[in-house]
């Protein structure tokens, strides 16, 4: 990381930037339209950006902001119906729009490279990896077959591919997602381009893999001396990697500045709001007690004519002028298009990165002690008296194995996947228990087991004092009143042919609660609780946006007055501004109704904000469990620490103090998990003792590790929370 910090400082100094000479890529007033069945969407409207050689430009925005369209416009890869309708794309001084098609194709193949979001579908499944990687060489540089193969092996080795001389002969589906993304990078770099465009290159990957890939791109940029355009929705990803940042909203660039400058002192009200909507900001500013600052409403529809500032409808600083005047970017090193920008403290405008101080308004500078041990005295949100009651849910020695069938006639079980292995935890009334881990760790399975959607292979799930495993059919049905599941993709979880009123009435009908007028009344109350108007009742799921659907999903979960809601990645598909709305709503309802949550997510920062206690899972095992603030800030398990370190953050100090506990390698198969500690194959601290299985030990903050990073802090303010 130190190299990249150095680069950041060098490039963000305005004098150096000005002296960098002509930009490698310059977009001037780029307009892009997408023709759809029901009209034309003006996806990009007057985009102007430039990228200097060797520089990383971060393009950040929410869905629909046009960030991906910008990348695709540059590459000439717009989807069908898409067309650049105006402006210039100057690459090395030549306008790609006016060059002949063959020439542009050559430039695209040799001088530019692109890495896409989804590594699973971005590689051709029927062509060997070597041939795909070397294809640009064969086509554009007329390199012979044997040499192309050698060059492919070379570049694969460079991107960190183990055994590249064997991998070249493999097919993409034989590799994991992270490895495929390495292949995609190798393919983009094989002709040594001067510009690499990475469109959400790590969004589909786990955080630890994300970190590996981002670091790889950083290293390669340096080595190849190329410029990088990093397109992402994740402010944290940009904060650590880019020299300059462009923030996009509704088809426009609304603000652009050097990275440090932008994150320390955003000027546009949208940028400010976006940053403050991150759970990370709330934790930093208030220790996590405050509601998130959400952005109300939705982005505008880009198919109609728009007047005034496009953010005006959602902005809390809006004036009449905003609605009529279309602000343009004010030239300079820190450009923004806002009529009422965030005021800057004197001297902070053009100073070098280090001199920039925090913005005046509402930003309590964080003390930012990444290893702060004493947990902030977190007020218990639910009534403290309830803490001594029986837990709502108690999971004891939970095991779930899935048999893997052979393909023969008899379909004998060929083995089993150990999805959940001996997991125990409790959830108390009014509490939020966070469950984090990367894909395949078994966290979703724990969720499904907890709500009774699947039956455990062994172990107990005790809900309100009764064991789920020995319920009769009738009791089982009643049990479902107590606990409800909230899905990641609410759209998929709602029957597309049912109207919202039918969707909300369904749990009441199933449980035979009340008569039809009582149900109507209950549905009306539910809508009020989640902040939707009655008019939603007559509509179908496809008419709603993601955030609205998540509200409807929440309303449905609440219908039966459950005591526990299990949210499986409930906000992972949402944009930051919408995510904040939903998280706030969940917290409000918890306070009002005394709900308990199991909050399952891969996103540590969201869990950190939401949870009172956190459990960390790795490959079916619970490796650490304890009070949320402690687990995140004073992790005891090396895996937890690696997760914490890998989470991209916009807090500058967090960016700077990442230490080297990156975990390497690939997740082992759950079909044949490592003996002893399941993490030992990737653990930087692994020793001989780790071949025996470590028990989960400790008081409030337990860890399953023979060699924990730190002892359990003594003198922790004890709540009566002895676990399991």
């Amino acid at each position, binding site marked *: 990381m130190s190299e990249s910090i150095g680069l950041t400082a060098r490039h963000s100094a305005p004098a150096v930037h000005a002296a960098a000479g002509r930009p490698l890529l310059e977009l001037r007033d780029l307009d892009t339209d*997408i023709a759809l069945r029901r009209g034309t*969407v003006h996806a990009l409207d007057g985009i102007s950006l430039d990228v200097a050689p060797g520089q990383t430009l971060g393009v950040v925005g929410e*869905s*629909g*902001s*046009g*960030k*991906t*369209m910008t990348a*695709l416009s540059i590459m000439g890869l717009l*989807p069908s119906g*898409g067309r650049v309708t105006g402006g210039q794309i100057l690459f090395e001084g030549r306008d790609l729009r006016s060059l002949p098609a063959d020439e542009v194709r050559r430039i695209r193949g040799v001088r530019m490279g692109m890495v896409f*979001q989804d590594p699973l579908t971005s590689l051709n499944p029927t062509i060997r990896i070597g041939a795909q990687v070397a294809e640009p060489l064969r086509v554009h540089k007329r390199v012979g077959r044997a040499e192309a193969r050698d060059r492919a092996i070379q570049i694969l080795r460079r991107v960190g591919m183990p055994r590249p001389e064997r991998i070249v002969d493999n097919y993409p589906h034989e590799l994991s997602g992270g490895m495929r993304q390495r292949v995609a990078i190798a393919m983009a770099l094989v002709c040594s381009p001067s510009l690499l465009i990475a469109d959400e290159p790590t969004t589909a990957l786990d955080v630890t893999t994300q970190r590996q890939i981002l670091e790889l791109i950083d290293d390669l940029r340096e080595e190849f001396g190329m410029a990088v355009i990093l397109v992402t929705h994740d402010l944290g990803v940009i904060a650590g990697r880019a020299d300059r940042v462009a923030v996009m909203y*509704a088809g426009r660039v609304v603000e652009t500045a050097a990275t440090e400058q932008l994150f320390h002192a955003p000027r546009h009200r949208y940028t400010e709001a976006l940053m403050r909507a991150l759970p990370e900001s709330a934790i930093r500013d208030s220790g996590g007690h405050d509601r998130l600052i959400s952005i109300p*409403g*939705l*982005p*505008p*529809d*880009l*198919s109609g004519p728009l007047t005034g500032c496009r953010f005006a409808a959602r902005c809390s600083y809006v004036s009449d002028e905003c609605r009529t005047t279309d602000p343009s970017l004010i030239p300079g090193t820190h450009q923004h298009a806002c009529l009422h920008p965030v005021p800057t403290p004197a001297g902070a405008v053009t100073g070098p990165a280090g001199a920039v101080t925090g913005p005046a308004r509402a930003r309590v500078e964080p003390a930012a002690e990444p290893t702060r041990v004493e947990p902030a005295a977190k007020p218990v949100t639910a009534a403290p008296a309830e803490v001594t009651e029986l837990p709502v849910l108690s999971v004891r020695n939970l095991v779930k194995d899935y048999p893997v069938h052979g393909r023969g006639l008899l379909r004998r079980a060929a083995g089993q996947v150990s999805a959940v292995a001996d997991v125990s935890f409790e959830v108390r009334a009014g509490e939020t228990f966070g469950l984090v881990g990367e894909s395949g760790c078994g966290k979703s399975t724990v969720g499904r087991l907890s*709500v*009774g*959607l699947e039956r455990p292979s062994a172990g107990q799930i005790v809900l309100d004092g009764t064991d789920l495993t020995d319920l009769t059919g009738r009791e*089982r*049905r*009643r*049990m*479902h*009143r107590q606990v*409800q*599941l909230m*899905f990641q*993709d609410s*759209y*998929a*979880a*709602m*029957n*597309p*042919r*049912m109207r919202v009123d039918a969707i909300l009435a*369904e*749990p009441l009908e*199933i*449980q035979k609660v009340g008569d039809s007028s009582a149900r109507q009344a209950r549905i009306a109350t539910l809508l009020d609780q989640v902040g939707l108007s009655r*008019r*939603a009742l*007559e*509509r*179908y*799921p*496809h*008419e*709603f*946006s*993601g955030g*609205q659907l998540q509200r409807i999903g929440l309303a*449905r979960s609440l219908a*039966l007055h459950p005591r526990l809601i299990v949210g499986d990645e409930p906000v992972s598909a949402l944009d930051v501004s919408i995510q904040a709305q939903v998280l706030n709503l969940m917290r409000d309802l918890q306070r009002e109704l005394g709900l308990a949550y199991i909050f399952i997510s891969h996103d540590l920062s969201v869990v950190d904000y939401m949870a009172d206690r956190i459990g960390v899972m790795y490959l079916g095992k619970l490796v650490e469990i304890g009070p949320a603030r402690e687990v995140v800030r004073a992790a005891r398990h090396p895996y937890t620490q690696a997760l914490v370190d890998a989470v991209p953050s916009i807090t500058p100090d967090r960016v700077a103090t990442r230490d080297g506990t990156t975990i390497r390698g690939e997740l082992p198969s759950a079909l044949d998990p490592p003996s002893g500690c399941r993490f030992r194959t990737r653990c930087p601290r692994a020793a001989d003792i780790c071949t025996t299985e470590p028990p989960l030990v400790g008081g409030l903050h337990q860890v399953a590790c023979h060699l924990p990073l730190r002892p359990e802090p003594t003198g922790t303010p004890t709540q009566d929370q002895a676990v399991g």
Partner: protein
Amino acid sequence: MSTLSEAVGPAEPNDTPPRGLWRQGLTVFCENRLALVGLGLFVLLAGVCFLGPLVYQTDQVHTDLTAVYRAPGEQGHLLGTDGVGYDQLGRLMLGGQTSIIVGLAAGVLATIVGTLLGAIAGFFGGWVDAAVMRVVDAMMSIPSLFLFMLLAAIVTPSAPMLILIIGAFAWLGPARLVRGEALTLRSREYVQAMRGMGGTGGRAVRRHIIPNAIGTVIVNATFQVADAILYVAYLSFLGLGIPPPAANWGGMLSDGLADTYSGHWWLLYPPGIAIILIVLAFNFIGDGLRDAFEVRLRRR
């Protein structure tokens, strides 16, 4: 996230008045010009066949050997007469009635049988599924025309019998389709969500699986009707169709083949064209319905 949705962005749904799914489907169906043409064709052909005889009255029971092979227009026979003196236009109307009724009935029967068996296989899974599907595989590997001929050879063909024969053996396609649909729908998240509320398998079938599978079934049924009309034509051509004096387009076309070289073109082309038009009509309608049902599921 797909690049397209990235470009479009979410729209505020609350400013347009709510529209029912059927209404939306109807709009999309009507946007599909071919589907409208198909529907129009069907209405036209059915109208002529069923209402035409009220206006254009002919004797389709007694042969008239004094008036054979009259050319179109002669003595008020708009489309001439055939080899036994039946008025060709009147016969086309009569034959059309049979073809349309047999096609519709056989298509519907096949769809019902297939849907039931497919649904049973899909819902129950396990050995029931395996048993039903192996039988389907086996019957599908006997070419359908061979199967129909096998049956037609044993029983005496009549319109109801043809409906039974075709209906009883054309169910394989729908069965396979519905089974697949049931299997996928069963694992949908909204079915799981319902189970998480304590709902039963029966409710899943009633409230979720059937309403979502019905579109596929209806679309397939229109293609089944088209196929059934063709099968009747083939059986007639092969001499296993409905015997006279009853008529159907397939039989008339087969009879017309004999007149190919005699210059009696009015006995060959009109039934041929009629079959093509009705089969096309059902195909167009099916395509339009498919779009209409699909669009209702399309998100934003």
